[in-house]
């Protein structure tokens, strides 16, 4: 028995970091389906990102998987343990870092780390050792003994994550780990997240940043209105959109442009945005002269024209009919 466990475990001493979710559902106020029959699997030792606008149900899903909310339907296995049957055992195996942070202003990061370790049942000496290890691993040395209220946003966030993994869980949930951070701190946080994955942890993050999902996540699940609309690696998702994307910036006359271009044989699909039109075409380089001619001939003035490979935003747009950038800005 012990032997088979050791053989199947990717890391000695760490339980299975797999997450299996089946038809998970959460209903608020009787009729708002925040999460609607959600099913997906997360492979151990990977970084999986939930991408979607605010209100898509990402945080609700995370809170259910972290035992903070009880599901109204469906089931899930987190780190090899049935979520609904043994939430206490799930808690031992997971870490959770909330969106809004979790440190208390009047204590230092080191005090928080020692206390957090002790909440998992270890004695004082062991807790101090673990806190010291965390301070080193997350490079908190320069400020670990100052009070938390003196920290910058990036420092605070690193402490949050260090607290979430002080007990070396096999799965860690990070809710919007980089929201509100400056670009440098964000990249620093990405490095920390990759390090956790490389140590064998399953990392599950939510984000509404396309770049973050693209750069950081091994697999991406796109969520909208409580539903999973697409799932796969970044490359797989983009491959679903054949060809190139041409974005034409316009000063008004959007509807007219859509009308004109929809009829063109080389255009696969047209999407109207606020001040631009997005065209999905087979070959962008040859399509651009045609686009210019068509619009110019009809007297539509172009502000700009841009050719690019499909991005995750194009995937989101294709799946939901909205741009994630616009959804995010609208909030």
């Amino acid at each position, binding site marked *: 028995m012990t032997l088979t466990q050791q053989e199947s475990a990717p890391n000695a001493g760490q339980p299975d970091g797999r997450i299996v979710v089946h038809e998970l559902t959460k209903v608020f106020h009787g009729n708002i389906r925040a999460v609607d029959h959600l099913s997906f699997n997360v492979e151990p030792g990977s970084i999986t990102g939930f991408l979607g606008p605010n209100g898509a149900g990402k945080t609700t899903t995370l809170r259910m998987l*972290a*035992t*903070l*909310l*009880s599901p109204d339907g469906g089931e899930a296995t987190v780190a090899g343990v049935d979520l609904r049957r043994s*939430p*206490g055992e799930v*808690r*031992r195996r*997971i*870490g*959770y870092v*909330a969106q*809004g*942070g*979790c*440190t*208390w*202003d*009047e*204590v230092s990061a080191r005090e928080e780390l020692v*206390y*957090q370790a*002790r*909440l*998992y*049942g270890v004695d004082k000496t062991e807790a101090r050792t673990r806190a010291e290890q965390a301070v080193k691993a997350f490079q908190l040395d320069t400020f670990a003994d100052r009070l938390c209220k003196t920290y910058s946003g990036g420092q605070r966030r690193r402490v949050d994550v260090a*607290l979430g993994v002080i*007990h070396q869980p096999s799965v860690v949930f990070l809710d919007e780990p980089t929201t509100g951070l400056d670009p440098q701190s964000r990249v620093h946080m990405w490095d920390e997240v990759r390090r956790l994955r490389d140590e064998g942890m399953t990392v599950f993050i939510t984000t509404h940043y396309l770049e973050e999902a693209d750069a950081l996540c091994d697999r991406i699940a796109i969520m909208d209105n409580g539903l999973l609309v697409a799932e796969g690696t970044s490359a797989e998702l983009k491959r679903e959109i054949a060809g190139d994307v041409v974005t034409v910036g316009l000063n008004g006359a959007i509807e007219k442009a859509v009308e004109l271009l929809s009829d063109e044989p080389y255009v696969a699909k047209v999407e109207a945005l606020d001040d631009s039109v997005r065209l999905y075409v087979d070959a962008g380089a040859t399509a651009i002269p045609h686009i210019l001619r068509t619009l110019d001939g009809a007297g539509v003035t172009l502000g700009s024209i841009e050719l690019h490979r499909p991005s995750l935003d194009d995937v989101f747009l294709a799946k939901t009919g909205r741009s994630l950038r616009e959804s995010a800005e609208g909030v």
Partner: protein
Amino acid sequence: MKLVRDTWLVFTRQMTLVLRNPVWLIVGLMQPVYFLLLFGPLLKNALRMSAEDAYRFFVPGLLVQLAMFGTLFVGFGLIAELRAGVIERMRVTPVSRLSLLLGRSLRDMVTLLVQAILLTVLALPFGLTVRIGDLLLALALLALIALMLSAISYALALKLRSEDALAPLMNAVSMPVLLLSGILLPLSGWLRSVGDWNPFTYAVDASRALFAGDPGNSSVWKALVITTALAVAAATWAARSFARSVR
């Protein structure tokens, strides 16, 4: 015992925070000290008592008042912790839910006892006398009140999650309870009949009996039984609130 260990862990952390800013312990004592200095002298004439009798009547009630107002508002601290995300962080750990409450209530009981002893010492120059055994019994009663009211305060804080809602609610409930307990002046007439339904009336009567050197008075055991029962009920309710949505 996990419960005892976890409770001690939560308590020591909370106590560390209190000791880091002990000035609040003193600020919490200001209200009863004002009553002692600025209201106490009036009682001597109002009640036509000797100064010693007046203080022996007034200070035991004042201690109950300190226990009420010193612990009824501890929920505010919890709301701040909820907002900082600290509570949620702890709820994801395997720490005992009951300990999250008991550790905090234990801190409230200890700080209250320190304040109660200080207030008693401050009242000694006014002619207050008390036997040490009676005082210990009175302090036990105060600690039970602190447990009950802090638990209620935490449970309401978890429910309301807003200082703006908690403050008026606490005032709306605590004022009539205070006035109907006979702390400031002895109750009489119909107020006495209503006051008989107020558990704090028994606590005040018991406290007075103890300071009068009469621990055999029936109000003492009645108050201990009533307060213990209510404290257990309140702690159960609050512990459930802590565990709610997290089995």
